[in-house]
Structure formats: structure tokens, C-alpha cells
């Protein structure tokens, strides 16, 4: 008990709980995925409430079911999916700072809406950054995370927390900033140059009909079921893949490539979903109906800059 590091002790890891931050930079050319929090909006708010810098490491809890015990005085915030968060069995608010004492038990239930909850701690979880300057966990690569081996949280893991140096203010996110994850999701798409690979009728159905999020989706990519898209021509020469790229394989069912995507690939790409829309997509459960709408690069850049500047002040 004495030489255990200060932090949150994992009693139950849940379905999939991963340490995540803003992801890697400058290593994609080595074949390393980017990673990072899937819903940056919820993740960044958690850190913001606690006065952490943008990019601090937090816990991404997919499908809930995570139970932890605290062994120090600290502050946490739970944001994102509408889980029931309890401290010692008592329900506590989401999107707000919670004060914890040694011995407190924290539990996150399965979500009523949304998919991924974020648990941020004051100062951020203290793990050594790996490749690309990131602490993110990469299960497919077997890199990063608490033990630098890509493993999700396991029972008995201790998530190291910094000591709290002074009394911290209690804060909550204003209600109008808290998304309704039950609302129908329309995703903004920047059309790419390869759009001329698709006949007009394919674009017409892509933007007018809805697609269902397939259960065969993960942090690499979201598969969609809906009207098959016709493609002119075959595979392209492999090239670097952008975040949110909508690639269309031979079966015509689009795949949106996400944070843990492979770095290069050769399927034709219709365009890319904007990062702000990917934040919303990260909270969509399998079976969700998705619609797409075209946006301009200018508008998408303006929206993304607003987001980054707000959390990087």
C-alpha cells in the first residue's frame, strides 16, 4: 500500500478504456498512426474544466463500465457520453469538476446516449510520452498507453496523477455547450479532388440518402451501410491518408478513416469529414443514421480554427 504511486486504481477497466491525448505529430512517415481522443470536444472540455493544457492525457471510456478507486486528493471531470457517474455510489454531475479524497470509488455506467465518456484529472495523467510526443494508446500497433505496449486499461493498473498543489475552483460547462447525442447527425464533408472518380448519381445518393453506422467500426474507421456508390476506374496508387477521408472500396460502401487509420492507402476518396463532425461521429453508436452535407474548405478551416483557438488560449 505504501509504495503504490498516487493515482486512480483500476477496479474494472470496462469494455475499452484507453489513455488518449491530442495524438502524435511528425511520425506518420514512419507508418505510425496519429491516434488521439476521438471526441475532442468532450475530451478538451474535461481538461479545460480542470485548468489543464490542451493535449493533457485523459481516459477515453468506450461503452462505460469503468470503475476506479482514488488514493489521493484530486479533482476529476467526466464529460462526453451520458453515463451515470457515481462517487461512493452517489450520482454526480457530468461536465463538471468533482473533488475526490483518498478511498473514493468512482464508477461510470454504460451510456444512455453517446458512446465515449472522458475522465480527465487535474494536471492530466502522468505517463511518459512515446513516439510522436504522445501518450495515446494504439491497440493495433501495440504501442503507447500506460505500459507503452498498446494495451487498454487492465484491472490493477494505476493511472498516475500529479499531487494537487492548491485548492482548485469548482466549474461546470455551460449547458448550451453540452451536445445532445440523440440528435440526428449530419456530417460536413470537404470534397476532394478524386470526386471526379464518382459519377454524378453516386454523389447525389451520398448527399441525399442516409447511411447506417456499421457495428464493424472502430478507432481505425467507421464502416457505413447504405446506397452503394459507383466508382469510375480502379484502385489508385497508394498515398498518405488524411483524417476523416471517405474511402470507397469496390463494394461501394464508404468507410470514414479515423484517428488510428493506416497511414497510406489506394482506395478512391470522395472527400474528408471535418474534424468537428468527427467529434460528433465519435458519439454515434452502431445503427445510428448518418447524413452528409458538403461544406467549403474555407468554412471548415474557420470552424476548426475557432475550436483550436478556444481550447489553446
Amino acid at each position: 500500500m505504501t509504495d503504490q504511486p498516487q493515482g486512480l486504481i483500476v477496479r474494472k477497466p470496462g469494455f475499452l478504456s484507453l489513455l488518449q491525448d491530442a495524438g502524435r505529430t511528425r511520425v506518420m512517415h514512419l507508418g505510425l498512426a496519429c491516434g488521439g481522443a476521438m471526441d475532442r470536444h468532450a475530451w478538451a472540455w474535461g481538461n479545460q474544466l480542470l485548468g489543464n493544457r490542451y493535449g493533457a492525457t485523459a481516459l477515453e471510456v468506450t461503452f462505460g463500465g469503468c470503475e476506479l478507486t482514488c488514493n489521493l486528493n484530486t479533482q476529476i471531470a467526466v464529460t462526453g457520453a451520458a453515463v451515470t457517474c457515481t462517487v461512493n455510489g452517489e450520482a454526480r454531475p457530468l461536465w463538471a469538476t468533482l473533488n475526490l479524497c483518498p478511498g473514493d470509488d468512482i464508477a461510470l455506467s454504460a451510456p444512455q446516449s453517446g458512446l465515449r465518456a472522458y475522465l480527465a484529472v487535474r494536471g492530466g495523467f502522468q505517463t511518459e510520452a512515446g513516439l510522436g510526443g504522445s501518450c495515446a494508446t494504439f491497440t493495433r500497433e501495440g504501442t503507447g498507453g500506460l505500459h507503452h505496449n498498446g494495451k487498454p486499461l487492465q484491472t490493477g493498473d494505476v493511472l498516475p496523477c500529479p499531487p494537487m498543489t492548491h485548492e482548485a475552483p469548482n466549474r461546470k460547462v455551460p449547458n448550451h455547450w453540452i451536445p445532445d447525442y440523440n440528435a440526428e447527425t449530419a456530417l460536413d464533408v470537404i470534397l476532394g479532388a478524386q470526386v471526379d472518380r464518382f459519377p454524378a448519381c453516386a454523389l447525389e445518393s451520398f448527399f441525399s440518402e442516409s447511411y447506417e453506422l456499421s457495428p464493424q467500426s472502430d478507432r481505425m474507421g467507421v464502416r457505413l451501410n447504405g446506397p452503394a456508390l459507383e466508382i469510375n476506374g480502379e484502385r489508385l496508387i497508394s498515398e498518405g491518408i488524411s483524417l476523416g477521408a471517405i474511402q470507397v472500396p469496390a463494394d461501394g460502401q464508404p468507410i470514414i478513416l479515423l484517428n488510428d487509420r493506416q497511414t497510406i492507402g489506394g482506395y478512391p476518396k470522395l472527400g474528408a469529414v471535418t474534424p468537428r463532425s468527427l467529434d460528433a461521429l465519435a458519439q454515434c453508436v452502431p445503427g445510428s443514421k448518418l447524413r452528409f452535407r458538403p461544406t467549403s474548405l474555407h468554412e471548415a478551416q474557420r470552424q476548426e480554427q475557432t475550436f483550436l483557438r478556444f481550447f489553446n488560449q
Partner: protein
Amino acid sequence: MFWRYEVTGVDTITLHFGEKIDVALVSTINRAASVLHNTLGERLLDAVPSYTTLLLRYDLLQDDLASLVADLKPALDSLSTAGNESAKPPEVVDVPVFYDPRVGPDLENIASRANISVEEAIKRHTGRTYHVFAIGFAPGFAYLGQVADELAAPRLSTPRKKVPAGTLGIADTQTAIYPISSPGGWNLIGRTPLTLFDPDRTRPSLLEAGQLVRFRAISESEYTALSGKLDDLPWETAAANAKGDQK
């Protein structure tokens, strides 16, 4: 020098330097990446070379498309006029390989497809210098080309569930080494004792786009002396061959 760009995401553009796979593009793209790193510095979050392209990811806190292209254009245009100014000769990486059916279960098939002996197939595979066209599929997985036409072979119709790290394969006219144990559909012809990817090294990936690679055949004793492994063989024939009737 020809180049054009395409918008591929909110913070990415893809530079195109040609329309088809060509060894000459490898050094062009490598020089472009190097001049852009010098010009843009911290403004560049990633630069990912591939066969004909260079994907750039930039920082929207510092740039938008217009400001990026304004600085990128003169840098790339100067490259085209100055030609081969201070370009360093590409690095040549020597890769020892134990070519043997025990670690390369498709070696005999590759040779028989080409109507040549296994020894001749090894000679032809080691007899040329390969270019690293791109890294992808997995950390440190380098696509090398081009193999001699007669050694080219399509991917297996059913990929193997597990290919050990270090295994060398051929798919179409490309050759590559699996950096980590993973599923794979390439025709396997040997194994290197070298570690292709190690996160704790200063340069985690042994191979990077733009480098040249020479394969060198080594004997079983050299292979094991270099800590090469013969265990964890996934293929059925491994046990029978290990009894020792090779060559």
C-alpha cells in the same frame, strides 16, 4: 519539375509529382520533403511520402491553405530550377537475409514459377538495389521496388494468419519485410535477423522513404549468430524441413 496539389482534408494537402510509379520520383519527393521541412519547420505537422505523392499536414493555429501555399510554392519552384544542388546521395542500407524454405515457405514456388533454381532466384533477388517507395501498412513497413520481372508474383489468395517479424516477401513487383508479427498475404522467401522497427531507437524505423536497400544472402550459422530466430514458424511444413535436407 512538375507538381500540383489537391486539398485532401481540413489541414492536409497532397502534392502530386507524377501520375505513375517511377523510380525517378523517389528522389524528387525526398528532395521536396527536405526543402519543405527547411522552409516550413514547425508549421508542418507531418509529411508523408508515397510513390507519386507527398501528403502534408499543417497547423491551423499558424496557417490556412492560402498562407501555406504562398510559402510552399516558391520553395518547390526553386527546387525544380536548381536541380540537384545540395542533394545528398541516398543512404544505402545493407540487409542480411537468410533465404530458406524454413523461413520463406514460398521461396521454392517463386523459383519454380520463374523456371530457375532456388539459388538463382536468391541471386536475382540480391542482385539489385531497391528503392524505398513508401512506408505504410504497419510501423516501419517499407515498400521496396522493383523486383526482377520473373520473380514478381501476385499476393496469396488467402493471407497467412501470422507472419513473423523480419520475414521478407514479394507481392507483384514489390518486396518488403514485415517489421512486426502480423497477418500477411505476401510470398515469403526469407528472414532478416535485423529489427526493422524499435520505438526506443533514435531512428525507430530502419528504413525510410528515399533510402536504397541491398539484400545480402547469409548462411544459417550467420543468421543465428546475428540472433536470427528459427522458432515460431507458423507453416505446416516447418517441422519436416527442419530435419535438415536443405540444399
